[in-house]
């Protein structure tokens, strides 16, 4: 009886029998989840690994061992590297932008004013909308003839203006359209997290700094930022990993075009796999992506684990 009562305190059960029960019970609780994850998560990885060493495409089903043929094709495929670079550019610009805008917003909403709660509730809306719908929404915003963005520019410059944002040959224009959508959708997410973290910063330290006459920027750098850094790190990790697999909004806005100008890793994998049915190469592609991301995630998570 007493052994059972102590059981919730985890590691050392008092008697071997209780220990057996404990072990059974606790594994009983996790096994269903592990099983589901193994089925859905691990099976595709093993499948991809297998198929990536064969030669299967729309016309051929050659299951003999092909060595690293598909991996060679992958690393010598310019379009693959383009997609990596495109994804890198989008992530590299969107991530810091969302962070800085999120911080500015958090600063704006830090102190109370009338209506603050309602505005916070409203401003979060973009982050809960389906990303595909967000893409559709901005495709409409950027419409060249009846879209509001060109119309507003028409007011400002006076006269005609019917820039095609999404099928333009100038990457700066197409990218700014995609990044606007991405940053619009996820800045509120950053903001919400940062605001909460910022609100939790120890007030006494801030007051002490104020008495010392430290400037706002100095206070932010010396006291606030160190305090919220772990949270910033988590938020950047979540967003960063989402950006690396960016698909929905690009699919809605440009489908990777014009040409392959805005093709992300996920979009290219989709085209390779589901339009070309170059199945073995897509498998190699998927395997490379999964392995590199898993390594990245493990490293990052261990760091988060430490900072917590």
């Amino acid at each position, binding site marked *: 009886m007493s052994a059972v*009562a102590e059981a919730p305190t*985890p590691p050392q059960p008092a008697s071997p029998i209780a220990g057996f029960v404990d072990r059974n019970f606790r*594994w009983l*609780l*996790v096994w*269903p*989840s*592990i099983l*589901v*994850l193994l089925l859905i*998560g691990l*099976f*595709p990885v093993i499948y*991809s690994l297998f198929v990536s060493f064969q030669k299967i495409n729309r016309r051929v089903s050659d299951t003999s061992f092909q060595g690293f043929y598909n991996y060679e094709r992958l690393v010598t495929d310019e379009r693959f590297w383009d997609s990596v670079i495109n994804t890198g550019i989008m992530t590299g610009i969107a991530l810091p932008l969302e962070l800085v805008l999120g911080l500015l917003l958090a600063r*704006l*909403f830090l102190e109370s004013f009338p*209506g603050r709660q309602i505005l916070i*509730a*409203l*401003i*979060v*809306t*973009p982050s*809960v*909308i*389906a*990303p*595909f*719908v967000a893409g559709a*929404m901005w495709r*409409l915003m950027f419409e060249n003839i*009846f*879209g509001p963005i060109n*119309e507003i520019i028409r007011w400002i410059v006076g006269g005609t203006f019917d820039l095609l944002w999404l099928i333009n040959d100038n990457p700066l224009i197409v990218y700014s359209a995609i990044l606007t959508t991405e940053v*619009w959708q996820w800045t*509120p997410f950053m903001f*919400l*997290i940062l*605001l*909460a973290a910022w609100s939790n910063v120890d007030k006494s330290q801030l007051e002490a700094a104020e008495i010392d006459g430290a400037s706002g920027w100095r206070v932010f750098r010396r006291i606030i930022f160190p305090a919220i850094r*772990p*949270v910033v790190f*988590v*938020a950047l990790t*979540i967003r960063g990993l989402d950006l690396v*697999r960016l*698909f*929905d909004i690009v*699919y809605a806005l440009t489908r990777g075009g014009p040409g392959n100008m805005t093709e992300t890793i*996920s979009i290219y*994998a*989709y085209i390779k796999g589901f339009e070309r049915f170059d199945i073995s190469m897509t*498998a190699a592609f*998927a395997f490379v*992506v*999964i392995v590199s*991301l*898993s390594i990245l995630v*493990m490293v990052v998570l261990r760091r*988060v684990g430490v900072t917590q």
Partner: protein
Amino acid sequence: MSADGPHRFKAATAGRALLAVAVTALFLFPVYWLFVMSIKTPEEVFASPPVWWPAEISLENFAVLFRDGDVRAIWNSAIVAGVSTVIAMFLGTIAAYSIARYRTGGDHLAIWIISQRMIPPIAIVFPIFLAFALIGLNDTYLGLIALYTAFNLPYVIWMMRGYVEDVPLELEESALVDGLDRWQTLLKVVFPMMRTGLFATSVFTFIFAWNEFIFALILTRTEVITFPVQVSHYFGPQQIFWAKIGAMSVLGTLPVFFTVAMAQKLLVRGISMGAVKG
């Protein structure tokens, strides 16, 4: 100094409030724009310069969706997201309990589980499509529900682990002393203590499934098309049905919007994957 202090304070607050309103309006404008698209007449949809507010509210675009049966996509989304949320919440919470209380599997298991969440859907969807085809799960509720359950499990486990840790251990001990067995303790003592956590986590689980696109795009045909996929059907090379896109998006966004409004206070912890206790 002391005389105009409060004044200046008031002016600063008013200024900040104004700026905050302006920024919020900026963020909401695209949502507004898609919304007015849904209540415009065809002429107004294509008008240039654009119509900022329609002369009269036309519900025709919504009526068409009901007449043609397109709204079924909303129903499909509700079933798929709803059922998968319930299953993922149950399986995930008991697993989280075990991991939090017993350190089952240690750090390795916890990290492996959360890393499953980070796999890009596009990298696994093709093998899943083939496997589902083999066992007849494509374009079925069961198929999408199973997938979304798996997709959301890591999040549920990760989040609920934190909430389990918030439940005082003494409560469980006294329940066990009172003669409840382990299952009873879990279901009757621990679960009720985590009401808020369960609610907040299921809100996000639901939203993830509701908004998901790639899996639904590839694994559905007609029967269980979800709402984002339905919206994608309105884009054609020769026509884009903006009014339908607007109306369907409004129908698909309202439920999420209200759920989030209800869960306002719990948002931060959920969205930050537990990094901020909010």
